[in-house]
């Protein structure tokens, strides 16, 4: 199998799984229990939080463990909207966000909030001036993703952070799921208040995510029950997931530079191959883009057809994001960057990893030639 869909999910790292298994076997106590066995779990939880905070310049943050990035995004966005709704009801996001952000804002709009969806240019990037103009007295939240999951665009998060520093009443939430471990992220330095991460995108386990919350930022819990996780997420805390998430983070961040350089080379190789085919249009931008993601459209060929055509070769990549790919509609993100319905329905995403080998890309090239010839 040649797996080229690492943006959808990744295989778990052996060491991370081992950490999960050992914690599950040895320290299965409830961290909320008063007794010593519970205290060990509490300690592990504390150590996990500390390690995670140290890794992305988040000393002054709390880490709230959740079940996935979708939950973290919901908690962040609804949590702020519901907390600060009395101060203002205006929220700002972009039109190219992940469904878990986009649809959360749509549901808040139904609740009576006023949401501005910023437009993006052909590269998928918002315009700072437009953001500046969108900010109002009653704006309480700006939520943007760091790296776009479909086309890889890096949003100007650093610049937005600087801008929002002048608006202390606005909370800045960033979905860093596709940035973590791939490009440098420093929460405090970048003036990010809330940040969403997911374990299974960084070679951790599924069913595990977290929300970083800057100390002093108040959000409303979206789930009632016990007082776990600073009263923000009721329910017994999953310590093995937390511990292994901390490990997954450490391991991926350890190799960030090395992996980046390596994947950039692979990316260039794929791009060089793609431009040989006149029917292919590369949708990912050239600059300010994650090398881990290449999105392109094949003129006249539906995404599904193209993805399935590679199955006989056991080569797997994706039409749009896995969270939306079962819906047979043109990609919202690609339409937002200006593609027409046809091209937006013909988009395909290859996503790379430090695990991807040169030989795999060679195999991809061979298969590409055959598939394109057959489809012509």
């Amino acid at each position, binding site marked *: 199998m040649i797996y080229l869909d690492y943006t959808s999910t990744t295989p778990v790292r052996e060491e991370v799984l081992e*950490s999960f298994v*050992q*914690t599950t076997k*040895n*320290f299965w106590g409830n961290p909320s229990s*008063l007794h*010593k066995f519970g*205290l*060990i779990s509490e*300690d*592990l939880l504390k*150590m*996990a939080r*500390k*390690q995670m905070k140290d890794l992305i310049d988040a000393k002054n943050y709390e880490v709230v463990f959740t079940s996935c990035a979708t939950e973290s995004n919901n908690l962040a966005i609804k949590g702020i909207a519901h907390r600060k709704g009395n101060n203002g009801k205006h929220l700002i996001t972009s039109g190219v966000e992940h469904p878990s952000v986009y649809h959360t804002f749509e549901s808040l709009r139904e609740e009576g909030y006023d949401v501005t969806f910023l437009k993006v240019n052909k590269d998928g990037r918002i315009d700072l001036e437009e953001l500046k103009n969108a900010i109002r007295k009653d704006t309480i939240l700006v939520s943007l993703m760091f790296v776009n999951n479909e086309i890889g665009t890096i949003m100007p998060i650093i610049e937005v952070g600087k801008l929002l520093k002048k608006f202390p009443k606005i909370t800045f939430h960033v979905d860093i799921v596709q940035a973590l471990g791939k490009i440098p992220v420093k929460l405090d330095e970048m003036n990010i208040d809330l940040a969403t991460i997911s374990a299974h995108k960084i070679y951790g386990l599924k069913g595990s995510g977290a929300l970083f919350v800057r100390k002093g930022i108040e959000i409303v819990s979206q789930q009632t029950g016990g007082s776990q996780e600073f009263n923000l997420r009721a329910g017994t805390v999953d310590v093995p997931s937390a*511990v*292994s998430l*901390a*490990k997954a983070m*450490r391991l991926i961040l350890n190799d960030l530079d090395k992996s980046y350089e390596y994947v950039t080379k692979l990316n260039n190789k794929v791009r060089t191959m793609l431009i040989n085919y006149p029917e292919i249009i590369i949708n990912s931008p050239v600059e300010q883009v994650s090398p881990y993601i290449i999105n392109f459209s094949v003129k006249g060929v539906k995404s599904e057809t193209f993805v399935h055509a590679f199955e006989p070769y056991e080569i797997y990549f994706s039409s749009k994001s896995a969270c939306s790919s079962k819906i047979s509609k043109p990609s919202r993100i690609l339409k937002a960057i200006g593609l027409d319905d046809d091209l937006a329905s013909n988009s395909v995403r290859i996503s790379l990893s430090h695990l991807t080998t040169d030989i795999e890309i060679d195999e991809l090239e061979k298969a590409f030639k055959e598939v394109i010839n057959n489809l012509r």
Partner: protein
Amino acid sequence: MLYDRILIKYGELSLKGRNKHTFLDTVLRTIKHKCINFQNLEYERFYDRLFIILNNEDPFEVIDRLQTVFGLHSFSLCTKCESNIESIKTLALDVVSTEIKNPTTFKVETNRAWKEIPKTSIEISQEIARHVLKNSPQLTVDVHKPEVTLKIDIRAEGTYIMTRDILGLGGLPVGTDGKGLLMMSGGIDSPVAGFLIQKRGVGLEVMHFASPPYTSDRSIQKVVDLTEKLTKYAPNSKIKLHIVPFTKLQKAIFDYCPKSYGITIMRRMMYRICEQYANSNNFPLIVNGENLGQVASQTMYSMYAINSVTSMPIIRPLVTMDKNEIIRIAEKIETYEISIRPFEDCCTIFVPENPVTKPDVHKCLEFEKNFDYEVLIKECLDNIETMEIVEGKAFNVVTEDSSCPINDLF
């Protein structure tokens, strides 16, 4: 970054007389220890100041570390050139144009320690100011209340130019004046007392009274974490923490003395234990976080009744402070959040409903005759458990002796 060195001015210790050398040696040793991770630093020691040559280390990270050293008055980022007017002019302008981007007011202040330079300080200030002003449209002069003061310090070995003074912690270098024993319950006050007494140069060991099963490992974890915060200011970044097994004695007090006197007598026992430990280790004083009037055991009369068991000085740095002032310091030294973890400690269990606020020493002595506390005190002292707490090292009381290696999990 134009700045290549940090000028450190000593605080009060520059007033010292013949023992000044001891102080200076101690403070330099401490600085070197605290900055051990910056391998490129070099140190130039002069009579009453010290230069740290940065050799490309980040000055602000270095200053962060210097902010853990008592005995330092201020830090200035500075740069050096030859002591002649032309060089000074060039460098002064360089400093201004890299440091000051926004429109602001400034003045020049010259200190001419080396008199061979052929102009007076005022003349030099004027000449430099003219030169800088001519070439920096963002600046205007304000000699009374300038935003930026460009300081020029002319000496034989060279001229130093600096713009910013950052205040240090002040105080005296820790370790110049022996050790004190800090009583730590786990509350907000005692770590603050520990911080303040270190400011006067006193090294610390910490004593905590544990009463399992009434108190738990979580309370011990609290004092471990609190002590860790204090190690930041210890010259070698280590502090010894002693855990006294106090249950038996505490229960005996409860069994043999009237409840209203429970706290008073408990405190008396604690002082006896501390004094004996301090004496056998040659510590001349005990330090605690007591504050006048905060709780029943902290009235003047209580202090008298409790204090009368010992003639050793008991220093209470917080005695006149308001709770808010204490909390402010606790937040600054990052102990507040640890202190408010909600676990029982030896001072919060067995608390009587109506503690006596004017205890009588004679009554205390009478009640203490009800049981043989000397034996119990000896038992406490014989069974003290000591741990060495080191700055920055995560130390978990419970997981420390677990069979599964914890660190591998991360």
